[in-house]
């Protein structure tokens, strides 16, 4: 069966520090992968999606970037964090169905 992992679960970082959040999927091949940010009162905002290795699409201009170095690995990064980057980050995947499956999320606090 398919599973999706995210780490770390929580992270506290100072402003200006770099960021790397990792997401991996097991039990599936060539999935579409997604990064969302969940903020109170703002719902789920799609940040990036990827339809294949090295293929990244950005939905909103921002301080973050994403990479997909392997078929089932999706990384969210930043060179210098801002206070506004604080939030709950969710990774998701899907295959041929439109249904998406979500990871447990990472709570990022930027101080």
């Amino acid at each position, binding site marked *: 069966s398919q599973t999706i992992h995210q780490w770390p679960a929580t992270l506290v970082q100072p402003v200006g520090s770099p960021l790397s959040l990792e997401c991996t999927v097991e039990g599936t091949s060539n999935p*579409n992968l*997604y990064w*969302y940010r969940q903020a109170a*009162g*703002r*719902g*789920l*905002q*799609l940040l990036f*999606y990827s*339809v294949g290795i090295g293929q990244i*699409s950005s*939905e909103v201009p921002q301080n973050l970037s994403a990479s997909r170095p392997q078929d089932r690995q999706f990384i969210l990064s930043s060179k210098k964090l801002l206070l506004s980057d604080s939030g709950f980050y*969710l990774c998701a995947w899907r295959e041929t169905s*439109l*249904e*998406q*499956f*979500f*990871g*447990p*999320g990472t709570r990022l606090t930027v101080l």
Partner: protein
Amino acid sequence: AQRVTQPEKLLSVFKGAPVELKCNYSYSGSPELFWYVQYSRQRLQLLLRHISRESIKGFTADLNKGETSFHLKKPFAQEEDSAMYYCALSGYRGANNLFFGTGTRLTVIP
């Protein structure tokens, strides 16, 4: 452009009362609609999708294309229904991404 609107951020009902979580959408085509739910300390998960036309945990949702709505309903709310509910839309274009509403937090009062 696609848009999903959930007008209620918070909704409280008493146990045993009917509940309706509203969702309206905007999409120039034939969308597929979903309801996702996030219980406390659990992952966001699919509750139901309109093409399945099924009832999950007593919840149903009917796609009304005339009113562009996909309201979630349950005749008798239970305490375990307390959660965050998101309505989402996907179209059969491009990368077929999901577009989420801002969510409604449902609290069922015992």
